[in-house]
Every structure is written in structure tokens, then in C-alpha cells.
């Protein structure tokens, strides 16, 4: 993604990041230019798919000529701008800020934000830059009554009110199912009238879970699966024709969770729909066929060995061909199967049965 498109010369200008000169263009943010240079600015409320909100102040940088530190995720570059992303002043700011967040967050025995299935980013930040120790804030957070929706769970104690979830729901999914509600220390993520998600415009896309940096929003089905405990296998969604890339999380030989690959890496840009993210229960469903079946004299299907099933099937089909010719044969292949399997099916019908009566199930 980093190769920018060729720009007209006059739109390019130079800026300096940590003493290094680099090219930038009108409209870019400090975070974007820095990222292209491989300079990492920590962010928490920022998701590159969303308009910058400048809410969490984790990304503050020094901009020459500006008295105050400025949010790198939102601050626009201009020609000749000199930016510093690491300094004692920034370090001090971060320690205080992280301290404030931690004072109001669920901590583990080591005093770090608890690890969650989302890979708690606050924890990662605190591991890098030791936060100032502050007195814990004892203000219980307001939640929303537990609802019937099968997928999405919210833990207000882990919410840092960055509003990535509500902005995702508004800006990307564009259904506005969830929103910031209440005020002051009671501020929380909720729905209109605290309704259950199934009674809102929510489409169960799970994008709010995906963007949540702390794990306050989490999958009901797989709350306990920490990133370190699963093997991830990159694959392609088997539902519609978009071809979203997925990471299948495998625990004990089972698909336990599905997530989208990082933003910017694949065609779906970090997004998935309800089917791709959640509709994988069928994989390990008890109704799956597990034995070859042959119809016996009693008219019923009975389990059989592979050897026998293949032999009976081959004999049966070859018999039809001998009695009625190739034109009496039909082969139906599937857009649900892989390209290789479709290739083999058409090769089978054309070679072993000498017929072009082969079609996949969907014509479009």
C-alpha cells in the first residue's frame, strides 16, 4: 500500500520528521507521513479507515512553532514542518496519560491492563512506556443490559471511550446502531433506548469488535481465546464473491474464531460481514457427513468404506454410460469448491465419460 500514486510535482513538499527530511503532500497527517517513513507513532483512538477523532491524546508529537503537543493522527502537515515524535517531553506526557487510563481500567496482578482476546493495545503501550502510578478511580462504569444477540459482548470496565466502535458503525458500516450515551463518568457505549442489538439497525458485522483497541467489545462465542493461544491460518471466505481474506484461529484442531487481516493488507481492508466473521459454526457442526453412504437393498443409505463407496459409484455411473451413452450423463460442479476441484470435475466428465455435460451450479 505504501507506494503512493504518482503525484503532480507541485503537490509534493518536504517536511522533517525526527531530523530526517521526507516528502509529503497536502492533506496528509503527521501519522501518515511518519508511517510511510517507518516511524511509529503510538495511537489508540485512531483507525486509518476512520476520520481522525483526536480523542485519546496518545499520539501527541512536537511540532516546531507550536507551544503545545499536537495529535499526530489528526495534525495536517505543511511545507517545511519540523516534527519530533520521541522526546523527554513526549515521554513524560505519555507516562501521565497512561497512568490516568490505568487508574480506571481492569489490571492484572502485575498492574498492567488485562490481556483480552482483542490484544489489549493499552497493555502493549503500558509495557513499552511504564505509566505513572496513580490512585485507582473507584467510579463504576455504566453498562448496557445484557442482550440476546449471539455475537457481541460489551464490558464497560475495559472501555476507554475512544469511540472507534461507534465511528466504525457510523462511517464504515453506515448503520449507526451504537452510539456514545450518557454523560460524565457515566458515558458509555450504548444503543438508542438501551435496546438489544437485535432490535437495532445492527447488521452483526462485528466491525466494532475488530476496531476496539482494548477488548471492551468482544466476541461472545470466543471471549477466552487470547491471541497467543491460537494458530492463525490465512484463507479466503467461502460465502459471496468479494473474496474477503480471513484469519482462521485454530485451537485444539477446531476453528474457534475468525478475524479480518490487518487494515490495508488485503482486499477487504480489515472488514468482514456477518457471514464471514461469524457464520463458521457449520464447520464443526454435528450434522456434518462423516462416512461414505451407499443405498442398499432396503432403500436406505448406509455407512460404507471409501473403497466400496468409490467402487459402487464408479460402477453405477459407468453402467449408465454403457447403457445409454455419454449424452445421458450430467455433471454438476460447485462454485463452493476450489478452482482445482472444479478443474478435476470437468476433467473427469470430459475424459472418463467423454461428455461436455458439465456445469457449475451458479451461472453468474
Amino acid at each position: 500500500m505504501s507506494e503512493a500514486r504518482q503525484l503532480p510535482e507541485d503537490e509534493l513538499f518536504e517536511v522533517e520528521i525526527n531530523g530526517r527530511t521526507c516528502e509529503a503532500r497536502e492533506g496528509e497527517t503527521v501519522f501518515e507521513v511518519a508511517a510511510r517513513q517507518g516511524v511509529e507513532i503510538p495511537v489508540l483512538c485512531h483507525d486509518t479507515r476512520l476520520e481522525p477523532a483526536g480523542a485519546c491524546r496518545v499520539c501527541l508529537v512536537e511540532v516546531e512553532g507550536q507551544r503545545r503537543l499536537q495529535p499526530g493522527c489528526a495534525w495536517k502537515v505543511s511545507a517545511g514542518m519540523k516534527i519530533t515524535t520521541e522526546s523527554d517531553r513526549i515521554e513524560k506526557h505519555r507516562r501521565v496519560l497512561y497512568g490516568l487510563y490505568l487508574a480506571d481500567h481492569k489490571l492484572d496482578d502485575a498492574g498492567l491492563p488485562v490481556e483480552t482476546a482483542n490484544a489489549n493495545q493499552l497493555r502493549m503501550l503500558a509495557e513499552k512506556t511504564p505509566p505513572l502510578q496513580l490512585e485507582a478511580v473507584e467510579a463504576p462504569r455504566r453498562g448496557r443490559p445484557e442482550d440476546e444477540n449471539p455475537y457481541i459482548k460489551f464490558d464497560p470496565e475495559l472501555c476507554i471511550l475512544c469511540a472507534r466502535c461507534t465511528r466504525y458503525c457510523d462511517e464504515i458500516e453506515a448503520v449507526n446502531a451504537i452510539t456514545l450515551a450518557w454523560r460524565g463518568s457515566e458515558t458509555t457505549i450504548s444503543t438508542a433506548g438501551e435496546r438489544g442489538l437485535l432490535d437495532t439497525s445492527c447488521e452483526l458485522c462485528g466491525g466494532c469488535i475488530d476496531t476496539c483497541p482494548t477488548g471492551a467489545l468482544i466476541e461472545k462465542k470466543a471471549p477466552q481465546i487470547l491471541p497467543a493461544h491460537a494458530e492463525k491460518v490465512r484463507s479466503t471466505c467461502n460465502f459471496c464473491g468479494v473474496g474477503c481474506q480471513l484469519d482462521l484461529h485454530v485451537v485444539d484442531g477446531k476453528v474457534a474464531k475468525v478475524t479480518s487481516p490487518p487494515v490495508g493488507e488485503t482486499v477487504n481492508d480489515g472488514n468482514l460481514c456477518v457471514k464471514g466473521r461469524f457464520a463458521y459454526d457449520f464447520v464443526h457442526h454435528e450434522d456434518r457427513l462423516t462416512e461414505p453412504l451407499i443405498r442398499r437393498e432396503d432403500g436406505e443409505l448406509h455407512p460404507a468404506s471409501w473403497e466400496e463407496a468409490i467402487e459402487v459409484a464408479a460402477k453405477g455411473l459407468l453402467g449408465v454410460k454403457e447403457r445409454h451413452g455419454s449424452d445421458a450423463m450430467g455433471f454438476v460442479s460447485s462454485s463452493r469448491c476450489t478452482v482445482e476441484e472444479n478443474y478435476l470435475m470437468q476433467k473427469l466428465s470430459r475424459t472418463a465419460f467423454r461428455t461436455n455435460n458439465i456445469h457449475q451450479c451458479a451461472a453468474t
Partner: protein
Amino acid sequence: MTNSIDEIRDTEMMFVIGSNTSEAHPIIAMEMKKAVGRGSRLIVADPRAIWMAGIAEKHMQLHPGTDVWLLNAMAHVIVTEDLVDHDFIAAHTERFEEYRESVLSYTPEEAEKITGVPAQDIRDVARLYATTEKAGIYYTLGITEHTHGTDNVYALANLVLMTGHLGKPSAGMNPLRGQNNVQGANDAGATPVFYPGYQNVTDPAVRKKFEQAWGVELDPNDGLNLNVMMKELAKGKIKGMYVMGEDIVISEPNVSQIEKGLNQIEFLVCQEIFHNLTTQYADVVFPSSCFAEKDGVFTNSDRRVQRVRKAVDPPGNAREDWRILADMARACGYPMPHYENPGEIYDEMAALTPKVAGISHERLDERPRGLQWPCTDSDHEGTPTLHQDGPIVGKAGFQPVAYRPSDEMPDDEYPLVLSTGRTLYHYNAATQTRRSAGPVAKQARNFIEIHRKDAGKLGISDGETVRVSSRRGSVEAMAMVSPRPRRGCVWMPMHFAESRANELTNDAGDPITQTAEYKVCAVRVEALTPEPVG
């Protein structure tokens, strides 16, 4: 698609016709929403007020099956106002004059009478489309699942050619494929007229190449496509079938005929992950694997070949489909090679298929965004936008098309027009999605969407169970009274085995593709309980 999915966000205008994008292709819809947010102008043409229509600048709510009229009328505006791209037409097309003549009688005013779309809207949209540089057309089954589906596609292609909206990023002609690997299955030759890579089975030179590679003599004639195959099955002429990964009973139109055929078939082999309505008739059932249990590739709508990777083992004694197929071929007397893995199968196909000759599992493994064909050799990085150098071979011909009414029109006995389709929460026969809690919580049973005025007239209230009948069959469904359909039109999803929309649908096919008319058939809707007297 002639363009890539990532080009959508940069389009300046999108003409979405016959595609309920936010439900059938949610992630493409997201890109469209993003484009709208950036100022792209969205026009939606659909008989229903679908979600995308809500964020569109204009919704052209046409009568089902009148697409050719609408599109020809747009063409009429473009030629009469001389908004055509003369340079593109001269350089890349032929038969423009003949085509020009053919659309002259399709005036927007006449079109209004037939399509129900105001003439002024037709003019506005035609002008907008013709004068916007990055204007893309997006369509799906709402265009193709008609007896005039091919005409619809030609009518769209004509618009694209006359305005030169081809071979440019973010402008083009973009069919969105309904299923994950429809593109890939077609590419692989699972079609009665093509070997892999759209090489004609009737071309002697091509056939010779495949005969040499596969070591057998091949059938020189086109085969039967699925719709015809099903009709021949019903007539008792197809007597042996091997069906992989498809429930032909629920998915094909005019179910009762197919069931009749399956009752008398001599031998049926099914290869499936779940029992379905078709396996009930099988003589042998092979338990196979789902996508998470095997290696291979899928090819998506923008011709992007991407890896499918085995994450877990198939359950019990189930096996990967490619292994079963190879064993079956050998048992049937064809010496199919002993492939070690699907990568080898892909290599065999690529060696015979110039379009994908440069693609291999190894190369795909290095590229998280896959490779888009044409990709002709191992140095080629794929083709995001098709036709950059003009139409691939020679010149593209305009195809004049004349409006033909749908095969079955409403009458006194069956006064409503039924269209069928997919919803966000389910997928085709729903054997997969109906085993997940979310889709079931959102949509547990079959429904029929009906305009509130039609419902009022029939004495039907929201949530009530109704009987829906056509000349071919009848099913029960829950009435969903809504303002979204046109009056006189109803809509039903095709996912529910116990209440099959395809009992109702018409299997009349398009004369060229034979794709069935899932989008238009005449039905009657009745309340189940008679109205109380008095």
C-alpha cells in the same frame, strides 16, 4: 469485473442496477458507501427500495423485467444529445450506426410508461453517466436472472462502449459474482462450452491441445448447461449424475419437475458436507470438506485468485473433494495423476490456460492481495483493470437489443410479480448459515415482502403466515409488510428448504445462457385463515 474492488472508492459516479449490494456483497457496499462519502454520485435502479437506494442520489424504481427499456432509453438520450465518446467508438468498436438507429424509438417518455421511471430521471441519469469520467456500472443477478438476461447485459455493455467507460481505473462494467468461486469455477472449465480459461470445446485446435495433454479423445460438441440439463433430467433423458457441492433441488427453478426427474434417475452420486434435499435421492453419498479443511484457490469477482488454506481436518472419514475426484476418475478408468497437493493440480491447469499461466500457489503465497488474471507468465503482476489497451481482441461490436417482456406476466389469477434473491444473513441453500445463531436470530423463517397497500387490499397483516402460489407450486411464508417493494411486486429469499421459493419460480431460460427467470414470475398471495365474516 473489468475493475478492481479497491478502485470503487475513487469512482465519481456509480450506476448500480439489479444488485442489492449491501446484502449480497456487503464489503463492496462498504466501498460504495466510502465513495459516496467522498462525493461520488450513486444511482440505484431496482424494483425495491433497497438499503443502497436510501443513500443514493436517485432511485429508479423500475418495474421488474423492464431493464432493456430503461437502458435503451438512457442510450437514446446519450445519442440524441450527442454525448457519446466519438474517439473511443472509432478506435475500439464497430456497428455503432446500426445500434444508434436501434435506440431511436426508445424515447424517455415511452420508457416512463413501461418502466415506471420518470422521463426526466432517465434523462438526468443518462447525462450524468455520459459526462462523468470515472463512472462505473455494477450489476448482478437482478440483471442476468431473466429470460432476457443476455439482452440486459448487452444493453449495459452498449452504454459502456458508447461512452468509452472502459479500460480506465474506476470506470467500467462490473458484474458482482453471487458466490465465492463462481468466477473460479467458470475459469476452471466447469462449463459445457469451454475448457479452462474460456477455450472453446468446439475449436479443433484447442481440442487437440487438451486431447494431447489429457491423453484421450474428447467430445467435439457443446454440452448441456445446467438449466437444460435439469429439463432433460425431468424428461428422463439424463440418467446418471454426479453432483458436487450443490443442492439442485432447492437451488434450481421449478423444483417439482426436478424431483420427478430424480425419482426416475438410474444413478446419482452426491458429494456433500451436509445432507440436503438432493442427497435424499442419491445412490452414493461422499462426505467431503468445507473450505477450512482443504488447500486450493478461489477466484473472486474482480478476477483475483487467492489462496484457501487448510486449517483443520475434515470430520470423521470425510475427505477433501480433490482427493475424492481423483480416486473416482481412476476408478472410472481414467488414469488421473496421483497429485500430492492442489498446487500441482493448479500447475497442470495453468500450463493449459494462457490467462492464468503466470499464477501458482507459490506466487500467491507471497502476495496477500492475490493475483488478478490475465496473468500470463511468472514475471507478470496481474491485471487490476481490464481492457487498458482497448478491448482485448480486435474491436467490440455494439449489440442492438429489443425489449421483450418477461416470460410470465401477471394476470387475474396470478396478479403479483415475484422476484427472488438473497439476504445478508443467509447464503443460498443456507445449509451453512442456518447452523449459526446470528442469521437465525435475525431471520429464522421464510418471508415474503409485500407493499402495504397490496397487503391491505388482500387483508394481510405484518407477521401473518400467507400462502404464495404460482402456476408451478405453492409455499407458506411470513408476510413482511413494508414500503420497500413497488406496488404489485413481491420479493422472497431463496434460502429456506421447508418453504422453497423455487417451487414458484419459472424455469424458462434466457435463449443464450439458459439462466432461469428467477426475477420475474406471476404469483398469488392469500391469507391462510379466511377473513371472519361480518
